[in-house]
């Protein structure tokens, strides 16, 4: 992660403030920063989304390509994640520097989406054992401002919501060889159901309390964090502890309860925004990257 230089006095200030439920920018322990979500920003992808959470800026592009299904799951498509840390985020990410962080985030995403009912993979199948849709989800970290995992998971959910996969028809020849025909109409496509896609909530332990959506400075003060992925119904799909410090079991349960609560409200807010954007349709003014 990007490093930030903090003096001991600043750390003490942050820690004491958190004990009183008051953070440096005036938020409570369970408040998120103001987030901007915009979908369909990159036109030659099947779906894309950009999320700005404070100073953290993430761009996700989803490309749907045809491939062969995996051997152990012949009638399902699958998702492939790739995370690229741009050198714009921190100079440490230049060249191969960001690869370690990138693979860590990609592996976390694989684990979060590993549960069977997060995305309906059977709808991605075209011909069992022969053809299926592979969704390549590419995450680009444009700026690192704390709380990467949450922003990434919000962006992935928004991008999957925005993904339009063209409908295909399978034609059988006389000899039995199959031909795939892509429909010509750009509006004739299948959309993914993202109701069960989980979002990651990061809870960082600072002192005796835990905070949601930590900034870089708060992350520097916290010894341990818990990453929880929560679906919109409040079900947990995965749990991971990161950090050098240790957590005792009661605080883990407390953090899980907070995470579920916060996760549910995050999902409802995100769903509302995505549906609003969708309903504006073609008349929506795209802000994109400027402004």
């Amino acid at each position, binding site marked *: 992660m990007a490093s930030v230089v903090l003096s001991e006095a600043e750390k003490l200030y942050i820690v004491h403030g958190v004990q009183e439920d008051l953070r440096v920018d005036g938020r409570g322990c369970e408040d998120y920063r103001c987030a901007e979500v915009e979908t369909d920003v990159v036109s*030659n992808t099947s779906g894309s989304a950009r999320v700005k959470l404070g100073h953290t800026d993430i761009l996700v592009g989803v490309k749907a390509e045809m491939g062969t299904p995996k051997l152990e799951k012949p009638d399902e498509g699958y998702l492939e994640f790739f995370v690229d840390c741009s*050198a*714009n985020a921190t100079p440490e990410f230049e060249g191969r520097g960001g690869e370690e962080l990138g693979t860590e985030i990609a592996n976390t995403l694989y684990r979060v989406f590993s549960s069977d009912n997060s995305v309906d993979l059977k709808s991605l199948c075209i011909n069992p054992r022969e053809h299926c849709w592979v969704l390549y989800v590419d995450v680009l970290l444009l700026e690192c401002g704390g709380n990467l995992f949450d922003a990434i998971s919000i962006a992935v959910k928004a991008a999957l919501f925005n993904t339009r996969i063209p409908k295909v028809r399978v034609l059988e020849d006389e000899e039995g060889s199959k031909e795939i025909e892509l429909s010509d109409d750009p509006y004739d496509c299948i959309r993914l159901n993202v109701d069960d896609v989980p979002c990651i909530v990061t809870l960082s332990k600072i002192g005796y309390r835990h905070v949601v959506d930590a900034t870089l400075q708060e992350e520097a003060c916290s010894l341990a964090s818990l990453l929880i992925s929560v679906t919109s119904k409040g079900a947990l799909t995965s749990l991971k502890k990161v950090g050098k410090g240790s957590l005792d079991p009661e605080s883990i349960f407390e953090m899980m309860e907070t995470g579920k609560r916060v996760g549910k409200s995050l999902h409802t807010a995100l769903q509302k925004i995505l549906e609003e954007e969708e309903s504006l349709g073609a008349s929506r003014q795209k802000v994109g990257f400027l402004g």
Partner: protein
Amino acid sequence: PPQMRGSRSKALPDRAVVNCQYSMATFSTGERRRRPHGDRQAGELALHLKQTFEAAILTHLFPRSQIDIYVQILQADGGNYCACVNAATLAVMDAGIPMRDYVCASSAGLAEETPLADLSSPEEAAAGGPGLVLALLPAAGQIALVQLSARLHQERLEAAMEAAGQACRALHAVLDRVVRERLREVTALMGD
């Protein structure tokens, strides 16, 4: 956001080193790319960017230091290098690093005797057609970089370069206006 860095191990004693990295997002082109910045094309374009900006930035004002320019392509539709140069010019201006002049770049080509400026990706890919890339310092009319691919008859070169030059000058007007507007905004905010 462009930031100036402190000195690194490759410091030159009398002027600044300009370090560039060119990186393409995996979803930027029609087919998904797998290597964001390791491949040869990225290395070559980064080198070109470095040469261009070493010609434009007043590097002797910053001895023993390094200026990093990182360019990230989000979506590619032809004229990648030109867009990079224009964006980097604005970024360097925004960082407050003094330059000799704006660097404006444009690509140009010929389609059956008609010169075309600013080729898009289907035009660039058109079989066998020549493509010219020009990076210009508009005030002095000096050329920072010129690159030609495929074959072009010498007589036609003049026309293609003229087309690219005109496009660069038009771009210069736009960039200049944007920089001045931004400066007005910033001074208005800081003044009162």
